[in-house]
């Protein structure tokens, strides 16, 4: 296969780190495109796309490690895949050297996680929620393997205090672990955004909140959502640092995230990060909301999107060549097709099995 080239890297990351970052960005993109295709061919009833978010979701999950808590929304497949998976296990021989040698990876079996995640997307019995919850609305807490993942609660904003609470739990354990949480620009208008950030600041929680500002909440442009210049302007009102990054630039995002994580580990409290990205898809696949985005903006967003731009950067820097990129994409595609096909053939949940609502199995109603 076309090995990556050997020159010294430009940019803030080592060459190996750039390649590892890219691998997960491409993996996330192909993951999404696969389900998008299934949606278009009728194999899936609904799909919320993460396309365009890889430039900060992958770096964010790279900035944390095993034992840190991850709380995701509906456009964060990049963070989930990066947090869960071991690149060497899935793509042996692809990466020459570990990109982030100091980072402690989670230890669960990557093939199994990818299969279960695929089942989760498809509502299958082997999905993390056993078919009880839709796609990213699940959680997977597997502490022995370092996995502390809480997926989305539909009620926007409601995740944020829960994430802050996870940070409190980690702090109370006396560790230096942190919690990161993603939310859309839309959720910044909820009361929970305010209550949680304020409390996180007062309690100095090891908490990083990443606003994914893609300029729209469903159909509503940010101009109809808030009147401040930038969403990070709110950080000052909580007395915490606010950092605005180009969410299409994985290296800028990684630096900002790493600093926020370090700050949180030091006990210096939360950071608010605004990752600015383009809107590349409608709210959910196939709804009409994408028509609200003016064509000129769509063009701009496509020009600036993270995969295309980062791959161009890598080529320009001579970090790798086109052959490497093509072969990487091909290996990812075939792994995903194989895994997702297996998930599609997996059994549906048993309609006669009713999940208990109480942890002690108490029956709710006679």
């Amino acid at each position, binding site marked *: 296969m076309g090995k990556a080239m050997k020159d010294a890297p430009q940019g803030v990351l080592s060459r190996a780190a750039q390649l590892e970052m890219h691998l997960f960005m491409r993996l996330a993109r192909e993951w999404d495109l696969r389900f998008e295709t299934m949606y278009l061919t009728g194999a899936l009833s609904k799909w919320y796309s993460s396309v365009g978010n890889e430039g900060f979701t992958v770096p964010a999950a790279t900035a944390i490690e095993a034992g840190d808590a991850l709380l995701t929304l509906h456009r964060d497949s990049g963070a989930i895949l990066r947090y869960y998976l071991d690149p060497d296990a899935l793509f042996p021989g692809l990466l020459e050297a570990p990109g982030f040698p100091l980072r402690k990876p989670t230890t669960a079996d990557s093939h199994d996680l990818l299969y279960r995640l695929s089942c989760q997307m498809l509502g299958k019995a082997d999905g993390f929620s056993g078919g009880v919850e839709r796609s990213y609305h699940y959680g997977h807490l597997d502490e022995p393997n370092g996995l502390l993942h809480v997926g989305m609660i539909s009620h926007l904003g409601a995740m944020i205090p829960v994430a802050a609470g996870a940070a409190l739990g980690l702090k109370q354990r006396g560790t230096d672990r942190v919690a990161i949480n993603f939310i859309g620009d839309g959720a910044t208008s909820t009361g929970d955004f305010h209550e949680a950030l304020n409390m996180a600041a007062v309690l100095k929680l090891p908490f990083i909140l990443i606003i994914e500002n893609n300029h729209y909440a469903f159909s509503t442009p940010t101009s109809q959502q808030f009147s401040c210049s930038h969403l990070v302007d709110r950080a000052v009102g909580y007395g915490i640092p606010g950092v605005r990054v180009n969410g299409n630039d994985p290296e800028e995002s990684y630096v900002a995230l790493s600093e926020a994580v370090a700050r949180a580990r030091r006990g210096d409290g939360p950071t608010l990060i605004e990752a600015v990205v383009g809107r590349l898809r409608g709210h959910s696949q196939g709804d009409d909301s994408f028509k609200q985005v003016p064509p000129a903006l769509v063009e701009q967003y496509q020009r600036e999107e993270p995969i295309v731009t980062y791959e161009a950067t890598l080529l320009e820097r001579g970090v790798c060549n086109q052959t490497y990129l093509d072969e990487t994409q091909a290996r990812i595609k075939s792994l995903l097709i194989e895994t997702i096909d297996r998930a599609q053939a997996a059994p549906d*949940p048993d309609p006669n099995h009713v999940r208990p609502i109480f942890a002690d199995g108490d029956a709710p109603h006679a």
Partner: protein
Amino acid sequence: MLLMPKASTATEQKLYVDNISAALRDEMRADENVYFMGQDVAEFGGPFNITTGFLEEFGAARIFNTPISESGTVGIAVGSALLGRRPVVEMQFADFVSCGFNQLVNVAAKMYYRMEQPVPLVIRLPAGGGVGAGAFHSQNNEALFAHTPGLKIVAPATAEDAYLLLRAAIRDPNPVLYFEHKYLYRRQKGVTPTFPLGDTTASVTLEAKAAVRRPGADVTIVTYGWMVHRSLEAAETLAAEGIDCEVIDLRVLAPLDTQAILESVEKTSKAVVVHEATITCGIGAEVSALIAEHAIGYLDGPIKRVAYPDQPVPFHKSLEAAALPNPDKIAAAVRAAVEW
């Protein structure tokens, strides 16, 4: 005022969802105090296209998008209603009203009692399951509000009622929660009724007035919303077995039309209560308790309840279908009540 449709000259069959649009449009035309707000309702027309074209007709002062701020939005509606405006607020899904709960139960509901100042506002809540949408987009949370004095609740089961009840709700001087069922949006059809009071701005209030959807002699089924139709289906099956069901559609869930319920039970001596919401402390518990207190002397058998089990709505369609009340479960309950 009685809410039954007047003989309408219209013959065109319209969808339930289109009658919601029509009622809203007609009320906004009739009374310029009526304005409409919610998430994604203006340019986009809402996820169910209920307000498509409204921005063009009424302008940005009468219909506008809100940020994702259910509590702020309901509170703003209350404040403007105190000054005589007639806000209609759309929840994108009924499930999200929990984020504006305090403004409804503590602010809106108690305002008239505390201040003797009317708060005419309507919350539209796309509710209910059967559409494979999982725990956060399928809820039937009407009973959460029925326990709070000061709120009115309506739940249309037919396309005609979708129109009538919304117009009446907007003209009511109280906070009204209008639960519209997503499953019925494109499955129910009916004419657009002539609104009894025409296009005047005369105030008209909701009066609890249940409808007998099927007269019957043997057993009373009290229900509302989607389950009206599933109960009617069950009634057909049972008719073939010689069991004659009376199906009562409550239409207004608060305040309840106690009289209609009791009269029917006094006639049939048997009662089955059916709803899609979870069973414990639901509207069905209240209906059951009313019968057990006021019509016990006529009752000959248990008051059965058919409702959602006490659990969230699962995502997978087969899991959801297994949990939902359906004609078979309703028919079984009726048989158990009758054979007692």
